[in-house]
């Protein structure tokens, strides 16, 4: 296997492959930076264009778009509080407060380095651990996936925000929003109120842009045409030097990259979960957890390295088992099939140059991020955001409209986005955290589907949820987080009561 890996390196370093990597990375950063456009859409649009290309060039484009868009998503997340991709949600928590404090440049630089490091670790994991880690995922059944989803949901609800009950209510609101539409297992309609539009449920992208992108734009609109952002926010060269960043964040990067790689291997768990879990872990281990959410660069480093570390590792089950871990992995499988290659274990023996070449390409694009992301794209997009607020508001709203309209070609989606925007605005003002709502929409259906599968397989034996060793491990971890956070909240309340009296 090591020999095949080395043999594939010259293939990935061919001129055509390198050009496709650079073009793909630039397209990816641009797509990720535009709210409403996502890497899935970009890769899906690119695939038909690559029919006539060599598979190595086609996969180079895919690798570039994939890694580039994951970093690109952090640019509007940091500068505008609008996550360019769902995976950039956690980046907004500290990235945007940093911009408001005049540290936008440092946040972008941290995000760029963290994305690159996460991507490199992920590609190395794909190259070295693929066959071994694929075996571990085989031990995950629906019961384990149910607990993974519950763990993601509850830990975020409890750790984000100051009030546990508000966090839980936000998460449950998200779960209920995710219930709307036709039930995937029984085919019955739930909470559709006889409306045709609701039969398909709410599109995650519409909910996401509504909840996350509309409220900050409305807040911007409310300010007089003054500088909403600190002019110094966009200086890209401020803060530590590159060596300083490495010294400061290597622990966070290591931890988050490991989390990202592990999450990536689990089919169905995307970069957003990796980023949120990494963020939580960084917050939990920090000596100053109260500074998270107010502009702590470690939050940005954790979120970005976590979501990028998920990229290549999500390919592990796809390439080794032929089971796509996420939508992009499914598209990569599609790209392989378009070029006459059959995904699965045989791929490694029949087309080693292509499969190992693709692994090298993922590694090379992660490295290219430092050059293209830091030197070209970040500066370019940061300049665009220097526009006066009165012009930034309508142009951002037009960008959102085009992004949402292109999802389904339906104008109703725009009204729904605005409605979710108002809900998000209100929740923000009432001090309810928004991240658990999105997580609820995302993980609620995953938890439900796996719970029902578990019940079907076990013939309604509930004990199966608690008796499998991996499930039990996740439950113990979840209980530890819940108890420690409840204890912290209780102590804080007692302290403030004593302080007030």
């Amino acid at each position: 296997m090591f020999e095949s890996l080395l043999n594939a390196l010259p293939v990935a370093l061919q001129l055509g492959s390198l050009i496709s990597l650079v073009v793909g990375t630039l397209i990816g950063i641009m797509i990720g930076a535009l709210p409403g456009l996502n890497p899935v859409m970009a890769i899906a649009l690119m695939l038909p264009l690559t029919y006539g290309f060599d598979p190595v060039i086609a996969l180079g484009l895919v690798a570039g778009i994939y890694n580039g868009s994951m970093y690109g998503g952090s640019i509007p997340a940091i500068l505008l509080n609008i996550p360019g991709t769902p995976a950039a949600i956690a980046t907004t928590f500290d990235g945007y407060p940093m911009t408001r404090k005049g540290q936008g440049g440092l946040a972008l630089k941290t995000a760029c380095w963290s994305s690159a490091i996460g991507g490199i670790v992920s590609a190395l994991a794909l190259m070295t651990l693929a066959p071994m880690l694929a075996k571990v995922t085989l031990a995950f059944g629906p019961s384990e996936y149910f607990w993974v989803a519950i763990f993601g949901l509850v830990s975020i609800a409890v750790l984000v925000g100051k009030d546990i009950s508000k966090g839980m209510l936000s998460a449950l609101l998200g779960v209920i929003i995710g219930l709307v539409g036709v039930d995937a297992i029984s085919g019955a309609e739930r909470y559709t109120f006889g409306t045709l539009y609701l039969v398909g449920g709410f599109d995650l992208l519409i909910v996401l842009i509504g909840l996350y992108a509309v409220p900050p734009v409305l807040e911007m609109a409310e300010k007089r045409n003054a500088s909403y952002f600190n002019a110094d926010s966009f200086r890209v060269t401020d803060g530590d030097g590159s060596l300083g960043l490495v010294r400061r964040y290597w622990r966070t990067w290591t931890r988050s990259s490991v989390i990202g790689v592990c999450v990536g291997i689990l089919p169905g768990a995307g970069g957003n979960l990796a980023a949120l879990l990494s963020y939580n872990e960084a917050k939990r281990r920090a000596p100053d957890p109260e500074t998270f959410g107010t502009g702590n660069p470690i939050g940005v480093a954790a979120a970005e390295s976590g979501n990028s570390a998920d990229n290549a590792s999500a390919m592990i089950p796809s390439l080794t088992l032929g089971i796509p871990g996420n939508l992009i992995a499914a598209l990569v499988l599609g790209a392989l099939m378009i070029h006459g290659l059959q995904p699965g274990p045989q791929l490694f023996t029949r087309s080693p140059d292509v499969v190992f070449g693709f692994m090298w390409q993922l590694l090379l694009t992660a490295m290219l991020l430092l050059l293209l992301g830091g030197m070209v794209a970040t500066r370019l997009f940061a300049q665009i955001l220097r526009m006066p607020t009165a012009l930034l508001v309508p142009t951002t709203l037009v960008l959102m409209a085009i992004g949402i309209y292109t999802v389904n070609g339906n104008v109703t989606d725009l009204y729904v986005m605005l409605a979710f925007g108002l809900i998000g605005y209100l929740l923000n003002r009432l001090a309810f955290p928004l991240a658990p709502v999105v997580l609820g929409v995302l993980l609620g259906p995953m938890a439900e589907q796996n719970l029902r599968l578990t019940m079907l397989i076990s013939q309604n034996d509930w004990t199966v949820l608690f008796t499998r060793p991996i499930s039990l491990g996740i439950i113990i971890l979840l209980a530890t987080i819940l108890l420690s956070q409840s204890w912290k909240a209780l102590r804080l309340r007692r302290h403030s009561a004593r302080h007030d009296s």
Partner: protein
Amino acid sequence: MPMTYRDFFSGIAFLIIGATTAWMGKDFFADAAYIPIGAGILMGVFSLPLIWRSTRSLLARHHSSQPVMALVDHPGRFLATLGCCLVYYTALPSVGFYTTSALFIIVLAPVLGERRPVVVLGITLVFITLLYGLFAMVLRRPLPVEFFLAS
């Protein structure tokens, strides 16, 4: 309005949403009802501490020492932005994407305080041209056709 009132009313709102979700969920087919009922009940349960804490605080006439954030900072600009968005979305299918978007920027920017017509027109032109280049020429995404091009 102090935060405690807001917490009280948001707690009540969540209690109603939770109860309605669980009540509607009981009619769903077999195991399709598990999560709706569970989520509804849990929402009701978690809204209770919020209601309890805010009620207790209100009865004790205890006001939070933290500054209260207004629900809407500037209602005029807030409503104008929402109104412009609604008109924009309504006009989009019949007037066309690029025309409506250009008009939307040209109208909303002065409403929000931009008083330099050349800057507004210049940025609108550049922005719409870039959008056209990306979405119509590169990505070829179907968008509402301009009214003057519709046959």
